[in-house]
C-alpha cells in the first residue's frame, strides 16, 4: 500500500487559491466518494481548513498514480491543473506520514501550537469514517497522528503560552493573582481592544466589572455586554483602589493616571497587587507607575513583546515536537512494515506445519503402536525441529521488513520455501 498526500497550505498558496480549493463541509462526502472512484484508491481523507486543503489517499502498491490526486483536486474544484500545480506540495510514504503527524500536532500551522487544527483533523477523520473511506492502513496512520499530536501537546509546552495581545494580558493577570475568580476589573475607555481583553478576563473568572467612558452611550453598550456597572468618567479614580485590574484605552492625548495618584491608590489598597493594562495610544498611564511596588503596568508594546517571546518559545518547543514526530514516524513505519511481512510469516509457518504433519503421517505406520507419552515426545520433537528451521527466515523477514534493500530478501525467502 502506498500513502500519498497532496495539497496547499498558507505557505504554498495565497488565500485566493486556498479559498477556491477549500471544500465545504457538506460537500466533503461527495468529494470523498468521487475520490474513491479513481483507479487504485483504497482509502482517502480530505482535510479542509482556512489555511490548508489537502487530500490523503492510500493507493494500491502496483497502481500507477502519477498526478492522480492533483488532477482530482483541480477537477473537483474547477481549476486548471497547470495553474494550481506550482502551489501544491506532495509527499509519499514515510514523508507523507511525517507530514500528517506534523499537521495534526500543529507544527505545520500558521501559528505553531494552535489547538484548532487537531479538532479539524479529527473532524476530517470522522467525515471519512462516516463515508467508509478509511479502514485498515490509512486509519492506522490517522489515529496514530491524533495520538502523536496529543503526545506533542503533553510533552512539550507548544500550546502553553498566549500568542495574542489580549490573551497575553489574561496570562499575566494569572501570574499576578493566580485565580481571577472574584477579581474586580475596571475598563477605562470602551475600545475594541479593551473589549477583547475584558472578554478574556471575564471568561477566566473575573466577573465583577466596572466601565467608564467619556461617551456615556458607548459605556452603556459595553456595560450591557459584560453585565458591568457604569462609573462616571470624572469619578472613576475614586473607585480605583477597589480594582485589581484596570484596562485603559482612552483616546485622551495625555496621561490619565499618574504616579502620584497611583501611589495613593496602592496605599489605600494596603499594597495589594494591582495590574494596569494600558492599551491606549498615546499611552494613558504614566510609565513611571511601574516603579511603584506591587503595581504592574504593561502597555501595548510590553504585551506585544510578551507575545513575541511566547511565539519564539513555541518555535523552540516545536523542535522538541519534531523530535517526537521523528521517533513516532519510525515506530509507525516499523509497525506497518511488520504488518506487510505478516502474511509471508503466516504462510511460512503453515507451510512448515503441513510438511511436518505429512511426514509424520508417512512414517507413522513404521513406528508401530505408540504410547501416549511417545506420541507426545514425537510431536514435541518434530515441532521443535520446524520451529528451529523457521526461526532464521522469520527473523530475517522481520529484520528486513520496510527496508528499501529488504525486498530481495523477502522475495528470496518466498521462493526458497515456495510460498506463492
Amino acid at each position, binding site marked *: 500500500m502506498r500513502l500519498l498526500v497532496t495539497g496547499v497550505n498558507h505557505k504554498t498558496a495565497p488565500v485566493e487559491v486556498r479559498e477556491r480549493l477549500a471544500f465545504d463541509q457538506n460537500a466533503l462526502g461527495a468529494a470523498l466518494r468521487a475520490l474513491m472512484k479513481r483507479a487504485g484508491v483504497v482509502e482517502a481523507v480530505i482535510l479542509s481548513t482556512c489555511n490548508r486543503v489537502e487530500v490523503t489517499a492510500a493507493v494500491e502498491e502496483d497502481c500507477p498514480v502519477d498526478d492522480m490526486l492533483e488532477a482530482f483536486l483541480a477537477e473537483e474544484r474547477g481549476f486548471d491543473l497547470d495553474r494550481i500545480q506550482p502551489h501544491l506540495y506532495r509527499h509519499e510514504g514515510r514523508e507523507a506520514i511525517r507530514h500528517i503527524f506534523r499537521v495534526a500536532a500543529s507544527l505545520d500551522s500558521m501559528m505553531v501550537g494552535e489547538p484548532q487544527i487537531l479538532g479539524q483533523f479529527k473532524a476530517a477523520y470522522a467525515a471519512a469514517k462516516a463515508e467508509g473511506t478509511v479502514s485498515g492502513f490509512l486509519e492506522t496512520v490517522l489515529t496514530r497522528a491524533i495520538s502523536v499530536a496529543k503526545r506533542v501537546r503533553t510533552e512539550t509546552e507548544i500550546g502553553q503560552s498566549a500568542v495574542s495581545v489580549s490573551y497575553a494580558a489574561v496570562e*499575566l493577570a494569572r501570574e*499576578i493573582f493566580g*485565580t481571577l475568580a472574584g477579581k474586580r476589573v475596571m475598563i477605562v475607555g470602551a475600545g475594541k481592544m479593551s473589549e477583547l481583553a475584558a472578554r478574556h478576563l471575564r471568561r477566566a473568572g473575573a466577573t465583577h466589572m466596572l466601565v467608564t467612558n467619556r461617551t456615556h452611550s458607548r459605556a452603556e453598550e459595553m456595560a450591557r455586554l459584560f453585565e458591568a456597572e457604569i462609573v462616571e468618567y470624572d469619578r472613576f479614580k475614586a473607585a480605583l483602589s477597589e480594582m485589581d485590574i484596570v484596562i485603559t484605552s482612552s483616546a485622551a492625548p495625555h496621561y490619565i493616571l499618574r504616579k502620584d495618584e497611583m501611589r495613593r491608590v496602592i496605599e489605600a489598597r494596603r499594597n495589594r497587587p494591582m495590574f494596569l493594562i494600558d492599551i491606549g495610544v498615546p499611552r494613558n498611564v504614566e510609565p513611571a507607575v511601574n516603579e511603584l*511596588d506591587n503595581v504592574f503596568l504593561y502597555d501595548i508594546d510590553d504585551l506585544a513583546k*510578551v507575545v513575541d517571546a511566547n511565539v519564539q518559545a513555541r518555535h523552540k518547543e516545536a523542535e522538541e515536537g519534531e523530535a517526537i514526530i521523528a521517533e513516532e514516524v519510525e515506530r509507525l513505519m516499523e509497525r506497518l512494515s511488520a504488518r506487510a511481512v505478516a502474511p509471508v510469516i503466516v504462510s511460512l509457518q503453515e507451510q512448515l506445519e503441513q510438511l511436518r504433519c505429512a511426514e509424520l503421517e508417512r512414517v507413522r505406520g513404521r513406528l508401530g503402536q505408540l504410547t501416549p507419552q511417545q506420541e507426545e515426545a514425537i510431536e514435541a520433537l518434530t515441532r521443535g525441529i520446524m520451529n528451529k528451521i523457521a526461526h532464521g527466515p522469520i527473523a530475517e523477514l522481520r529484520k528486513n521488513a520496510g527496508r528499501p534493500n529488504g525486498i530481495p530478501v523477502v522475495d528470496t525467502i518466498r521462493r526458497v520455501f515456495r510460498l506463492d
Partner: protein
Amino acid sequence: MHELSIFWLRAAAALYSVGLLHAILTVVRRSAPLFRGAIGAFRVGVILHLVSIVERGVSVGHLPVDNFYESASVCAFLIALVFLFVHWRYQFASLGVFLFPLVFVLTLLGGMEIPVAGWQNRSVRDAWLVVHVLLILLGYAALLLTAVASVFYLVQERHLKKKQPRAFFDRLPPLGTLDNLITSSMGFAFAFITLGVITASTWAFIESGTRWIRQAKIGIAFLTWGVCLGMVFLRTSAGWRGRKAALLSVFALGLSAVTWAAHVGLRTLLTR
C-alpha cells in the same frame, strides 16, 4: 504587700491574654471575631493593672520602677493606656494585633517577680519543656516557609516588573498564591512562637525564679519574638509586601537561627 500587687498584675495579664488570642486569630484566620471581647477584657485588665501599680507605689512610696519587673509592668500599663486612647480617638483597631501581645508579654514578665512554688510533678515539668520546644520549632519552620515564600514573591515581582517573559522563574507560583502562603505561614509562625515564648517564660520562672531574665540568650529570644510581632503587624496593618516584607522575614529567620543556636543544649535540662 507586694504579693497583692503581683496578684492584681497576674489577673490583668490573664485578661490581656484574651487580646493575645484575638491577635493570633486575626493573623491566622484573617478575621477578628474576638475583638469586642478582647477590648472589653483589655479595659478591665488596665483597671486591675492600675490597681497593681498604685498598690505597689503606695507600698514603696514612689513610682514603682526600681527593677526590671516593675519597669516592665509600668511600661505595659502605659502602652495599654496609649492603645486605649488611640482606639477611642482614631478607631485604629488593627494596632491591637501588635499591642495586645506586647502588653500581655510585658505584664506576664512583670508578674514574675515573686517566685512561685517549684514543680509539684517532675513529668509535668519535662512535658512542659518539650511542648515549648515543639512550639518553637513549629514556629521556626513556619518562619522559614514565610522567608522562602517572601523571597520567591520578590523574585516573581521583579520578573513581572522587568517584563521579561519566559524566564526561569516561570515555574514560580503566581504572586497571589505566594501572598496567601506568606500570610498563612506568618500567622502560624507568630502563633507558635508566641505560645512558645509564654511556655518558656512560665517554665523558666517556675524552674529558676527570676535569675534567667537577665541572660543574653533570653534577650535575643524576646527580640526574635518582637521582630515577629512587628512583621505580623506591618503585614496586617500596612500590608507590607515585596522587598521590605522579604527583608524583614529573612531578618526574623536569621534572628530565630541565632536564638536557636543560643539555646542549643536545652535538652540537657531534662536530665537534670
